[in-house]
């Protein structure tokens, strides 16, 4: 399931955005395995090895979470809160990658301990740039949290 022992969890309900994000990562030579889940509930199951990801109960967690805020079932802020309040997942870097420039979203995200907050720009070029910096920053420069 993992490649290079590194994986990225992308929580995004829009298939177009998933495709654009994956392409941006690929273009920036981020070759880590990306696991895509399309709602907040699935994201939590994946992170905590429950539900349909119960077989993943090997304690391994993704190296990075790219999290949209507006998600079906459980919204992104709730996923962030749960993730940052559990000992096992607290250290996973989480980057909020969202359309929302709403101040309360940004403030709330930082309050819950988000590591970075990126507003998806309309111009994909800027998006590429953002993703490129993300890839460099979190996957290349940072040590794995474990």
């Amino acid at each position, binding site marked *: 399931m993992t490649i290079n022992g590194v994986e990225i969890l992308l929580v995004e309900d829009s298939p177009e955005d998933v495709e654009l994000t994956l*392409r941006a990562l690929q273009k920036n030579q981020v070759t880590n395995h990306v696991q895509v889940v399309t709602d907040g509930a699935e994201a939590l199951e994946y992170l905590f090895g429950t539900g349909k990801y119960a077989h993943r109960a090997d304690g391994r967690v993704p190296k990075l979470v790219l999290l949209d805020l507006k998600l079906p079932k459980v919204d992104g802020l709730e996923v962030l809160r749960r993730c940052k309040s559990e000992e096992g997942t607290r250290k996973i870097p989480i980057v909020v990658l969202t359309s929302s420039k709403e101040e309360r979203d940004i403030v709330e995200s930082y309050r819950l301990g988000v590591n970075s907050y990126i507003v998806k720009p309309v111009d*994909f070029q800027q998006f590429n740039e953002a993703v490129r910096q993300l890839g460099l920053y979190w996957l290349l420069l940072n040590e794995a949290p474990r």
Partner: protein
Amino acid sequence: MTDASVIPDKAQVHRHLAMAVIMAGLLGIFTLDSVTPLGYSVWFLYVFPVWYSTRLSPRSAAITLAAAAASSALIVAGYFVSPPGGSILETAAYNRLMGAMVLWVLTAVLLKSRTIEERVRWSQEALKESEAFNRAVVESSPDCMNILDREGRLLSLNPQGLCLMEIENAASVLGRYWWDLWPESSKGTVQAAVQEAVANGTARFQGFCPTAKGTPKWWDVIIGTVRGLDGQPTRLVSTSRDMTVIKRAEEAVSESEERHRVMVEQVRDYAIIMLDPDGRVATWNAGAQRFTGYAQEEVIGKPLSLFFDPQARDAWTVELEQASARGMYEQEGWRMRKDGSRFWAHIVTTPLRDETGTLRGFTKVWRDNTQRKLIETQFQQLVEQSPNGILTVDARGRIALVNRAIERIFGYKREELLNRPVDMLLPERLREEAALQLHRGQAAGETSFKTMDNGAAFSGLHKSGREFPMEMGLTPIETLQGMMTLCTVVDVTERKRAEEAILAANRELEAFTYTVSHDLRAPVRTMAGFARILMEDFGATLDPEAQRHVRTIQKGAQRMGDLIDDLLEFSRVGRAAVDCRPVDLNKLVGEVWTDLKPQREGRAVELTVADLPQCLADRRLLRLVWMNLLANAVKYTANREQARIEVGWRPDEEAADRMVIHVADNGVGFDQKYVSKLFSVFQRLHRADEFEGTGVGLAIVHRIITRHGGRVWAEGRLGEGATLSFTLEKAL
């Protein structure tokens, strides 16, 4: 010396009798004749005068006895001169009879003379005694008694009179005409009184006469007369009683009455009037004239009903009836003036009774309280008509006053509320706290305000049991009835409903913008993203026309993205809280200018900034203002060889604590007639291909400045540049 000498004692009588017997024996009369009946009678006649004389004075007795002796001598002589022819006895008897008759006559004459003499003596004695008595009476009289002759000359006066008149030497006044002793002003009266007494036997007058030493005295004088045998007055007796003390007291009383009368008449702030028992005006004062407009002569004798409204004329009897029943009657009411206008009178009516309890009339004291009444009435109307509920609560927590709004708000009728605990208007859970508030407020004299804003909602309890949100102000007030709390109540049900509606609308709007922020941008991003992918992956195989179409899609998506972003920005500045702090404008302008570097790249743009004062504003929002204004200035000077932007300030002539800041450029400017469109959202004065933009920038500026309480305006001339001005509060 009188009676004792006139009436002899028994021993004396006996002595006289014995002497008479001896004398008769000596003369032989008794022995000769005593045995005959005639002898007895003669003896009786002979002896009786002698006995009788013993009842008289010694002198009378002596005369009697002398007479008896003389008669004896006559009897003896008669014996010798008795007529011839008669027996000795007959002669003797005849002589005796003659002698006895002579003796009897003599004795009778003697006795008569003696009786008159005695009587004269007696009357003289009695007169002497009576004079002494009279003198004693006169001398012991407490009054001044003068004896005058019938011409009015003073003959004597008693010691008390000397004392009362403080006369040391009686001789100085005796013999003078009595009226000359009186002061000039009284002489006439005195003289007339004397004449009246002479004519009618008595006269009386009162007069003032100081004593010899000048002590002022008032006298009550009665003159009587002493008449002679001819019935004509011979003497006058005047009895003068010193009544100075009484007179003084009377004067004091009348003086004080006069003072009261004058005082009452002069009082202007109160009408003080007296009525007779039938309710007619008896006295009137200045205050009454002032209140009613009637002069004294117009109202004296007029009935009280004069001052009543014609419709209520009968009411006046009630006042008097109440007053006489209760002893005093106090009330307030409208009374009529002479000119038909009304005044609000406070009236105290008191019945006047004499010592027997008979009603003699009434006093009425009016006070004109019209001003107070008007104020009261206005105040009452203010309270009554107030759209807010007003009630007062006394120290015991009972409702003392409510207005119409309270009835409406709580659904109770006035009479259901008055004198009831105010608790009934509050839900049970709030009663304890409310009582505490009331108590604290009244004790401390502080005003408190209970609203639903700060913390727990404050609720009222409607009669129906429904609770409703209300605001309540509590103000302690001091009244004649003691400390009260004035409660103003506003039913905020409607306002709360409206507030909730606004909040709901705001929440909806927020949800909407949130949705816009997330969902509207996503498809735009998809378009732009995939258009780019198309170009990147297949650009080489697309003919130029296809490439142009793809680029148009990309531009459209970009523009859509910008519009959404600006619209969200605009929405955000409307909702964001304004956090005002001192802002260094020079620094802020510098920062923004630096941020605009990409926009002015490759151009010659000269910025002149005056030394700007600190202002009071939300820095984050103010930054948006400068960003928009300076970006506009840079944008609209794009076709100028030498672009000039000038920032300056001046004090705001409309508000001392504000300043006017302007940003002027030498750009394309605008036609002043379109200035009204300048600050509206999405309104643009230039075509998109001339100058890019969404038409939101100045709308954002307008909104931010307005939210800071400032004004913003623009002046421009087509082709000559524009000046945007706004006001900000200066920081102290």
